[in-house]
């Protein structure tokens, strides 16, 4: 429990209460004690939030913390430090560690490490199948008891439809989110960038959009049969967005998320063969980017995530075709979402906070996403106007693999408070 804190005179944006007004926020005993225009009382610490947005802490529900197994790329300590610096008060970490998080022992390890060293809350996502091999169910119930909040085989979508259906049925018993990386492996071969004219010109094997869409389509059918809460990870194609839109219109429990790079960059960025533009799903066409933006606008897309995927410089140096997929994102996501969505008025600030905080908390069924009195004081202070340059060398992540290095952006988290404790402060 930190000292009592008065955050004074900020623009409080809390979608959970439909709140968007200038006021004070009082934090005491690690909780939100009071909120509103007249909430000012004496506190041990006062923070002037004039011209700042005061939001419920941001939650990134798609992060790779690499621990255990790949600590040279990231650790729970470094990854959550990066998260706090990016304005996140909580992250959900994917199970593609080494060994994978497919047992209660793995989940307990992550939570124990997090309790020791993490700057943010850490919500482990357990594997759906043993070894993420897509064959036998992992101990979902035991992982849930140990603290897993959702389930995913992450980078490997479950190819076998029978296994996938039974896994959905089994997980539906617990009411937790089934998160799928949608990619039909039989359609992608050795692909390393979006299949299309640019890949053809560059002589690089392609990852076709239909590989994503085929699995989304199949999964929606399976999810309807199983009754599970189904979530499409990092959606990236126009066709997939349309499939989710239709499933939602039909009343199905289907949700999805999108990354900043799929809202800002196209596959033409790959022309320099810079592996920092290599990720999975890959950068797509302009039509796909526009469809993702439209999906955010009309509510088809529920959440904004980073898919923070650290890789060492050494790994990324191997050249475009050989380099691993993935880029880091925790320290650049907020200004990039502002650039892609708020600046061009696709959505407003309350909607942005909803998609970065309130909605992920709902989907993961975790606390957070709200500044209601009594809630844990997870708060992010954002300067929406601050102009700054993204600098990979100054990031807290152990890895530097970002295509946004050197980009001038607007908007930045200036303070991150977790449970009433200041875990990051720019000043």
């Amino acid at each position, binding site marked *: 429990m930190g000292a009592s804190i008065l955050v004074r005179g900020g623009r409080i944006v809390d979608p959970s209460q439909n709140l968007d007004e200038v006021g004070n926020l009082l934090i005491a005993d690690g909780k939100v004690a009071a909120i509103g225009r007249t909430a000012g009382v004496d506190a041990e610490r006062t923070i002037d939030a004039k011209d700042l947005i005061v939001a419920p802490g941001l939650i990134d529900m798609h992060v790779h913390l690499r621990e255990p197994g790949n600590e040279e790329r990231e650790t729970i300590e470094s990854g959550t430090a990066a998260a706090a610096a990016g304005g996140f008060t909580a992250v959900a970490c994917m199970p593609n560690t080494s060994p994978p998080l497919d047992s209660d022992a793995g989940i307990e390890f992550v939570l124990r490490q997090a309790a020791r060293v993490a700057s943010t809350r850490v919500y482990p996502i357990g594997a759906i199948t*043993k070894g993420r091999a897509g064959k036998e*169910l992992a101990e979902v119930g*035991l992982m849930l008891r140990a603290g897993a909040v959702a389930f995913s085989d992450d980078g490997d979508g479950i190819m076998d439809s029978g*296994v996938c259906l*039974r*896994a959905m*049925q089994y997980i539906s018993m617990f009411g937790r989110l089934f998160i799928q990386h949608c990619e039909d492996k039989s359609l992608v071969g050795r692909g390393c960038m979006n299949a299309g004219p640019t890949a053809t010109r560059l002589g690089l094997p392609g990852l076709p959009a239909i590989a994503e869409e085929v699995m989304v389509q199949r999964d929606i059918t399976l999810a309807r049969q199983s009754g599970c809460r189904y979530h499409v990870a990092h959606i990236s194609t126009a066709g997939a967005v349309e499939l989710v839109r239709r499933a939602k219109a039909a009343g199905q429990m289907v949700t999805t998320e999108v990354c900043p790079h799929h809202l800002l960059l196209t596959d033409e960025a790959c022309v320099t063969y810079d592996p920092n533009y290599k990720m999975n799903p890959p950068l797509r066409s302009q039509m796909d980017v526009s469809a993702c933006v439209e999906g955010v606008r009309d509510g088809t897309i529920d959440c904004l995530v980073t898919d923070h995927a650290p890789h060492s410089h050494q790994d990324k140096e191997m050249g475009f075709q050989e380099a691993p997929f993935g880029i880091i994102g925790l320290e650049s996501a907020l200004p990039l979402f502002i650039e892609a969505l708020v600046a061009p008025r696709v959505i407003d600030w309350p909607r942005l906070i909803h998609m970065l905080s309130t909605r992920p908390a709902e989907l993961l069924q975790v606390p957070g996403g709200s500044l209601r009195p009594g809630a844990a004081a997870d708060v992010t202070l954002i300067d929406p106007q601050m102009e700054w340059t993204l600098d990979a060398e100054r990031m807290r992540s152990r890895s530097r693999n970002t295509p946004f290095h050197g980009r001038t952006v607007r908007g930045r988290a200036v303070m991150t408070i977790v449970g009433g404790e200041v875990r990051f402060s720019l000043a």
Partner: protein
Amino acid sequence: MTPAAGETPVWTRKHLLTLRELSREEILYILDTAESFKEVSTRSIKKVPALRGRVVVNMFFEESTRTRVSFELAAQRLSADVIDFTEKMSSTQKGESLVDTARNIEAMGVDFMILRHPSAGAALDLTRAVDCCVINAGDGQHAHPTQGLLDLFTIRETKGRIEGLNVAIVGDIAHSRVARSDLQGLLKLGAKVTLVGPPTLVPAAFRQLGASVVHNLDAILPEMDVVNMLRIQKERITSSVFPSVREYVQLFGMDRARLKRCKPDVLIMHPGPVNRGIELAADVADGPSSSILRQVTNGLAVRMAVLFLCQQAASGAAA
């Protein structure tokens, strides 16, 4: 149809295939008959001449110990001659069909075929091929009517009634002929049946058969009068219907802690054989709430009743 007693016999069937086709009155008639046969087992000479001179063939195409022995003993106590047709060394393994095998056996002059077969519908097929009585001792995942009857008998014996009772059946419902027969019998006699297990083992379609389907055992235990724990097959792990024995036990195993959540007079049943420490903890299986051995005892009486009634009906029809 309410004939005066003695005018039209309640029981007119020569086969027993499922409980689904039986009326409530027919089921109760078997249970009542079984009660009088149970008394036979308490005599010093445990034999009655009801089936003297009749031939009963046990045709078991699947592993079974207790059902086979139970039928054999039931037939012997009724003074029938019993032949055991074992699945191994039989011509079915040389490609002879069930029906051909059965016709050949029937040609030797038999009165009863007790059939256990891995294919659903096998007993019905058999009735179309032979003239003798056919008793279904388990066909695939479809039905096991004498197990259903002995479970009903045991519940009625313990609770004094079946109507209005809350009965849970826990475990691998999807692959269980016992669950299907229990469900049919219990619903006919007015019990409320709740099927419990992971959705991979308890398909929602069972709701359309009249049962409640629940995935949280702890939530329903306090209301249950009877909890029937089914045997779990470890082979199901590789087909991804549940992840491990450890997880299954935590979610669906009956142990002393869960027993304490039940009504004090709850009846714990199991069709056997028990995986001790998995679906049922050893101390619960052997404890005062358990009816496992009594079920086996009652199975004998129920099977005597079924053989006796079918024989009577067959003789009546022939006369």
